[in-house]
């Protein structure tokens, strides 16, 4: 009898266990080969010698709740067996991630803190599938996200963590937009324009994101902004030339203005075709824009030259494209008003460096 007992007990004793303490303080034993599947536990056990007894149990990170840990153990228990086929594993994985999004997020977090990359990959992909194809409202609902973007916020400049002049340019444009908004608010008799500006800025950011869902309104407002940009840049031309001579740091915006400013013919022909007549435009003083420019730029001369060269390269490349591009851009605004690119515009363009277009 005792021999039989021994035979029964022996295999049990052969298996080794690791002591693990979960975030709720409870300590449990886990089969070694299962627990070691998690790199973090592996590290603790091997490099720090933890887990060999109840007193020095491997203590799991905060993000791993007991419920999640038991799920992870199920995953490890299945996958650590070497003999399974790829098909079996895949099928297990598919069933494993079928859970509500709340638990899926918790599981992802837990798996990440245990450095269990295969499980992180699996759960991340599952979360991506949930997000894919849904509208923002639907996503907010599923994940309980607050809808806290104000209109203003959507104009906020991007955080300038890089010195990328292109980001700065975008910030400048956004800053200009914000100023316009403020101007608008001051003028009582252009309330209609105010709404228009708001729509435009939100749509502007999202219109390209929404791709083919452009309604007529969005399209035209986008074009309006484009035309407005061009006109504004032309406006700064006269004052720009004066400032240029003061050895002002050149940057992409001012060099653009410079190019445009030199070409009076272009200005007039465009002025004719772009019939934007916002009153606020006139009010908007070109000098305000330059204040922004002065403040933002601390580009060193070497970088400045590089940017100059780059812009000129682009200008040259686009030189031949310019008439067609203008045609294309203008034709997108067809529903508002018919426009024609005058022959003068073409001829005049060839003579001078053309303005690189803003794809907006």
């Amino acid at each position, binding site marked *: 009898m005792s021999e039989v007992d021994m035979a029964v007990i022996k295999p049990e004793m052969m298996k080794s266990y690791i002591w693990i303490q979960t975030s709720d303080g409870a300590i449990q034993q886990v089969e070694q080969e299962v627990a070691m599947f998690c790199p973090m536990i592996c590290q603790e056990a091997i490099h720090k010698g933890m887990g060999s007894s109840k007193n020095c149990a491997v203590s799991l990170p905060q993000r791993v709740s007991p419920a999640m840990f038991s799920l992870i153990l199920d995953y490890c228990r299945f996958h650590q067996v070497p003999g399974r086929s790829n098909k079996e594993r895949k099928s297990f994985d598919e069933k494993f991630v079928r859970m509500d*999004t*709340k638990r899926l*997020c*918790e599981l*992802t*977090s837990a798996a*990440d803190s245990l450095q269990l990359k295969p499980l*992180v*990959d699996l759960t*991340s*992909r599952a*979360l*991506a599938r949930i*997000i*894919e*194809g*849904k509208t*923002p409202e639907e*996503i*907010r609902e599923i*994940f*309980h*996200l*607050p*809808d*806290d*973007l104000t209109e203003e*916020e959507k104009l*906020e400049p*991007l*955080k300038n*963590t*890089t010195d990328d002049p*292109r*980001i700065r340019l*975008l910030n400048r444009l956004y800053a200009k937009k914000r100023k316009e908004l403020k101007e608008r608010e001051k003028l009582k008799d252009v309330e209609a324009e105010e709404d228009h500006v708001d729509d435009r800025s939100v749509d502007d*950011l*999202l219109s*390209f*994101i*929404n*791709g*083919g869902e452009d309604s007529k309104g969005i399209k035209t407002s986008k074009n309006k902004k484009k035309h407005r940009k061009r006109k504004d840049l032309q406006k700064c031309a006269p004052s720009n030339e004066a400032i240029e001579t003061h050895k002002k740091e050149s940057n992409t915006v001012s060099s653009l203005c410079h190019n445009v400013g030199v070409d009076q013919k272009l200005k007039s022909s465009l002025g004719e075709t772009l019939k934007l007549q916002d009153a606020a435009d006139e009010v908007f003083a070109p000098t305000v824009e330059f204040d922004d420019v002065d403040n933002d730029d601390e580009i060193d001369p070497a970088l400045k030259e590089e940017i100059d060269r*780059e812009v000129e390269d*682009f200008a040259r*490349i*686009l030189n031949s*494209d310019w008439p067609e591009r203008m045609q*294309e851009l203008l034709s*997108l605004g067809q529903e508002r008003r018919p426009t024609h690119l005058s022959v003068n515009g073409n001829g005049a363009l060839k003579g001078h460096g053309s303005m690189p277009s803003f*794809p*907006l």
Partner: protein
Amino acid sequence: MDTEVDRISSLPGNVLDQILSDLPIRDAVRTSSLSRNWRYKWSHIPHLVFDTQCVSIPSEDQTVGKNKLVSIIDHVLLLHNGPIYKFKLSHRDLLGVSDIDRWILHLSRGSTKEFVLEIWKGQRYKLPSCLFSFENLIHLELLNCLLKPPSAFKGFRSLKSLHLQSVTLAQEVFENLISRCALLERLTLMNFDGFTHLKINAPNLQFFDVGGVFDDVSFENTLLLTQVTIALYEKVKNDQNMSRRSSCKLLSFFVNLPRIRRLKIHNYFLKNLALSKIPSTLPKSWVDLNYISIHINFNDFEENAVAFCLLKSCPNLQEIEMLGRPEEKAVVGPLTGLWGDDNWKSLFGQLRQVKIAGISGTRSELDCIKFLLSNSPVLEQMTVRPAPNEGGLEMVKELLRFRRASTRAEVIYMEP
């Protein structure tokens, strides 16, 4: 009671990057309008993929579609904040050449590791010189491009995988490209022009796949190459004088592939190998070769001889596939006794699977089958599929008669 807690926004940055990278670019960027927290989360994703799936532009007009695509890519690149490790551009509406130049210039300033560019329509797109200054490039994939690197180009020093399809390169450019990318492990070439001699000098190359029109393939310093597929799409000119004089092509081809494991000689390449002196045996055997697939014209004396010689030098083959190229019905040279001399010598001690297809029951084909059956003691399965409109009872009768060295062998006749 389950309170409505936002659990996803607090996931670590790398996990969010992973989730967002897995979404089509459109969905990823849209997350910027979810909440204040999410405004810039997408801008750190390290992978940008613009293909017809991710960016669907439902527009009939080609130009409008193209402009929208250009606008989208410009927007995303401008708003993106962080390293771009993978960039893929493969869109049906993609045309405008100057736009691509601009994007490649932007990427060349960063540390892009994977670059995929597929031009679906139009003539070969000439890659700008800034592409050749991608220092960290590990994987490069190009479709329908023209490569003309600057003379100062010293190769992609980190490049491990190169896939070129429908490309144009000068001979020198090709050779330099391969030899200067010292870490290259995988090379695929499909349909190319501008060079005809494939000189492959790549010490780390493990996988090589070529399909196109060329004069010759030669390997140099390719000791790690284990998988080779060569498909020659056009017939080589049959120069009788040359074939008598030149040294054994088969040998010179294989001498630099000592560790080869899987080999495919497709379309007309066997003919190319046959255009030289063919010895009855080779001085060396290739012991690592365990899979071979050959397109062979069983009516051509030389091709049969080359195949016979080759198979005899690979004692550890586990799987053989032979596909007949039956387009030349005319018999070239004596076709008997080619395969019949070495029976019952257990030449293929590991051979388990044989597939023969596209045959019509000629003498040389049947001899080949007989040769294989009698030399494979552990054979488990041989499938024989005749060419369309061929086969029939006669062939089955012959197959039935053949003695088999393996008692476990199944010979399966499949309908053409």
